[in-house]
């Protein structure tokens, strides 16, 4: 880097080339998109009511139940889920990318699915199997068949953690698989020639190389688990288990916003601490460069006798985490009674004509005139947000990786992680208040599609930055430097070199953003003003009127949209990285 800048000819260009401008712009963007809303939330907790909230949360008889116990539960969930996801997602990624296991495509597909299924479906699936008599009503599969389920297995931390692992491991899978696919055959072959045994190659070469991806996956799954509301609410409340996310939701829902914001800020602080520690671990070690531009064929290990047993394990995991929830969703879009999911199935909720006795005369979803509109709106929103988020995320990740270990990189990477933990309702409200009024010569953004896209990009930034970083960190600097020497500008380098090499990781991130956007309701409903809705709003409408079958049918439509997007991304990345096929 310094070598280059001394060569740079004139002043202006020198400034540009020394890489000062891009970080400055990025800092400004992050300041506006992330810091400003955060500061606004912080300020609202510094009013007299806000100070009272800090006191109530931290130093009052309420603190134990309002903060400390939920914090404990949340941290147990966060760490438990992150480790579980790394093990499960890592195992699957290794199997699919680096071994000759049969049915790799199928396994890969199953690995990406769970994240596209909303976590409440997994929680419902758990209930269908493990629900015990604590709540009354119809018991789950096991109790009906005479197997008593103790409370700890039916409710509370254990089932919540299992359900969240089943939901989020695919996030870890996507990121780790992207990183593993860049471990070139040459590295592994070099190890083999030097006589290293398989465990040695795994622990000595592969694991160190993908450490950044492991950290990225761990932080995202940690944040996901910590912020998830549906699973702890469905499985935890009956035994009075509160997490910070259920507490936070409750505080805002009952009009005690300040307390909710205080909890959110504290949660951000605690998570930032852990992220900082993990960042130190990564930057403390040497970065291993694996994408060198010298042939990136992937080497597959023969599994020998283990091929089929491992395949069976992977398929079992896939079946349990994807097929069961999808089945429960599908059944609940077909069964007229939500208490009896597997009887009297009807297609009415999908294609029924309406006007009859079923569902107060509501017609099936495919007869709902807004559905097609909503699908189109959803896809458009998802694509635009995925694109803008990835562009911004790529630029951020690039700067963070280039300046690994510097203060700037640390601050940027911390800030880029925060939005995931800010409750969407507070995030959206901050955006309306900040950008609703015209700022100087800029017009008010209120009610525009642009405001929605900006807010959504900021909110989903963590996915883009984390997935971008884990891949960019592996790209060798010499390719870029040779390009630089031949006079290629930053943009040219980005599009001709970085983008094609990192495409798998970028698409992995883009899919995560797309999925999150398509499903996330809170942000959209506060910023949307048009009457033609997106799918998540249609689902909410049905659910709010008690028509769960229709809502679940819409959820399946969302799943199909996500799947289609993921196939599309997969096809694109194979076309770009033709050299990968071996």
């Amino acid at each position, binding site marked *: 880097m310094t070598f280059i800048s001394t060569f740079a000819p004139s002043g202006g260009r020198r400034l540009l080339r020394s890489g000062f401008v891009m970080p400055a712009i990025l800092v400004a963007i992050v300041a506006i998109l992330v810091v400003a809303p955060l500061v606004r939330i912080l300020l609202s907790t510094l009013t007299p009511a806000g100070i009272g909230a800090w006191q*109530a949360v931290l130093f009052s*008889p*309420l603190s134990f*139940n*309002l903060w400390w116990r939920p914090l404990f539960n949340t941290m147990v969930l966060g760490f438990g889920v992150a480790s579980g996801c790394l093990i499960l997602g890592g195992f699957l990624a290794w199997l699919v990318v680096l071994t000759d296991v049969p049915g790799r495509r199928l396994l890969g597909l199953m690995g990406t699915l769970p994240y596209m299924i909303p976590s409440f479906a997994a929680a419902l699936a758990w209930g269908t199997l493990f629900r015990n008599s*604590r*709540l*009354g*009503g*119809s018991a789950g599969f096991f109790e009906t068949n005479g197997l008593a389920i103790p409370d700890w297995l039916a409710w509370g931390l254990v089932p919540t953690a299992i359900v969240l692992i089943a939901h989020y491991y695919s996030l870890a899978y996507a990121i780790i698989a992207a990183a593993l696919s860049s471990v070139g055959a040459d590295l592994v072959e070099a190890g083999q020639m030097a006589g290293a045994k398989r465990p040695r190659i795994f622990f000595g070469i592969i694991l160190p190389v993908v450490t950044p991806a492991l950290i990225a996956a761990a932080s995202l799954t940690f944040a996901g688990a910590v912020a998830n509301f549906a699973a702890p*609410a*469905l499985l935890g*409340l*009956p035994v*009075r288990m*509160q997490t910070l996310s259920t*507490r936070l*939701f*409750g505080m*805002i*829902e*009952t*009009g*005690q*916003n300040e307390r909710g914001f205080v909890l959110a800020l504290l949660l951000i602080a605690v998570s930032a601490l852990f992220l900082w520690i993990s960042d130190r671990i990564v930057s403390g070690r040497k970065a291993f460069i694996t994408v060198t531009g010298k042939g990136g064929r992937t080497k597959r290990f023969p599994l020998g006798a283990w091929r089929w047993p491992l395949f069976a394990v992977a398929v079992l995991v896939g079946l349990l985490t994807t097929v069961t929830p999808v089945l429960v969703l599908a059944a609940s879009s077909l069964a*007229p*009674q*939500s*208490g*009896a999911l597997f009887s009297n199935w009807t297609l009415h909720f999908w294609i029924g004509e309406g006007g009859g006795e*079923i*569902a107060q005369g509501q017609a099936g979803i495919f007869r709902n005139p807004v559905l097609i509109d909503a699908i189109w709106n959803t896809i458009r929103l998802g694509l635009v947000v995925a694109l803008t988020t990835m562009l911004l995320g790529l630029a951020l990740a690039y700067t963070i990786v280039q300046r690994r270990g510097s203060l700037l990189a640390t601050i940027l990477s911390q800030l880029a992680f925060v939005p995931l933990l800010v409750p969407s*309702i*507070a995030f*959206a*409200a*901050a*955006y*309306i*208040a*900040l*950008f*609703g*009024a015209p700022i100087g010569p800029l017009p*008010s953004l*209120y*009610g525009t599609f642009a405001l929605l896209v900006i807010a959504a990009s900021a909110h989903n930034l963590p996915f883009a930055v984390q997935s971008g970083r884990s891949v960019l960190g592996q790209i060798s600097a010499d390719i870029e430097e040779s390009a630089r020497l031949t006079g290629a500008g930053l943009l040219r380098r980005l599009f001709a070199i970085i983008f094609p090499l990192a495409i798998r990781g970028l698409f992995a991130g883009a899919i995560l953003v797309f999925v999150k956007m398509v499903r996330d309701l*809170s942000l959209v*409903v*506060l910023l*949307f*003003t048009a*009457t033609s809705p997106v799918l998540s709003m249609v689902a*909410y*409408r*049905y659910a*709010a*009127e*008690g028509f*769960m079958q229709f809502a679940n049918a819409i959820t399946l439509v969302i799943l199909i949209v996500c799947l289609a997007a993921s196939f599309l991304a997969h096809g694109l990345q194979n076309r770009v990285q033709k050299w990968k096929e071996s």
Partner: protein
Amino acid sequence: MLKRLMKSALAACVVLPTAAMAADLDSMTPEQLLPLAQKEGSVTVFSLSSRIAKIEKAFEEAYPGVDLIGLDMSSTKQIARLEAEQQAGVHAVDVLYIADTPVVFSKLLEAKRIVNYVPPRVAAQIDDRYKGPLLTQRLSTKVLMYNEKAFPGGSPVTNLWQLTQPEWQGKVLMVDPSQRGELLDLLTEIALHPDEMAAAYKAQFGKDIAVDADLQGAGEQFIKDLFANDLILVPNSDVLNKSVGDATAKNPPVGFGTYSDRRDNEKEGWALQVANNVEPANGILFPAVLTIAEKAPHPAAARLLIDFMFGDDTPTGGAGFEPFNVPGDYATRTTIAHHPDSVKLGELKAWTIDPAKTAAARGRVSDLIITLQ
């Protein structure tokens, strides 16, 4: 000079009427409002119910030329959005159709973000207590529900204090009141009736109640005892209805739920029924209100819409009210007949919440239940 005079005269023409207009608009009939509303062209409403889509159709048929834009979102989100918009100086929404009235009262009405409006056409047909501080359109319930298949002889509970006894341990369900405003309002209302709760205690146990030193009154003591008796909290009313109502259940729990959910009994295979004969009350009636946003961009159309949503003079309320006329919910307009299958409003043993009083007492109750968990 002349030009400037002209200008200020013109300005006066524009400003003066708008100042005087709001007061005028409040007393106008729908016929007088219509031409003004048509000039405004549209009206935007945030609605707690997606049935606003049906109102949209009916409203636009009744008043051509006024486009209704309905956005359905929960009360919490409506409040967050209105606050944020007004802080940014954006005035885009006209009408709020919203529940969660204690929060609406303290965050919106006291902060002057909304104004109350009572349509003169129906003013005489609404009880005074429903006209202010916020205009109530209908009342919903959070009341004790039981399973009528499992208890064919009527409600197994006749006094709230029975729920604190061993026979109901772990058999009373409630959506977590620290998660949902209506349930917090229910417990707050119980805390606000210490005398009735003390009398009911004496009726049940034959002795005077001893209230713990750190609690205020018999209502708070009841809340504490209820939690101590393993009250089971659930995340939403769907879970509650399934647990309490399951028609095949042998020994089902009871729970504080929504009376109008009974209409889904047949569809869902439930046997939900309201426990009405309960001392001192079986729960609460809480309002859904219609209110106008401060500086609403379409003030005439906003008033026309609120007028419309109180229905016509027929017993069903016609197209303007019918979508909301479900058994177990109650119209405040006296000309609208209550559903024949449900307990009459006057006979339902539920307390009606007062948004202002609830707002003042709710924080203390919220803190109490946090310590009880």
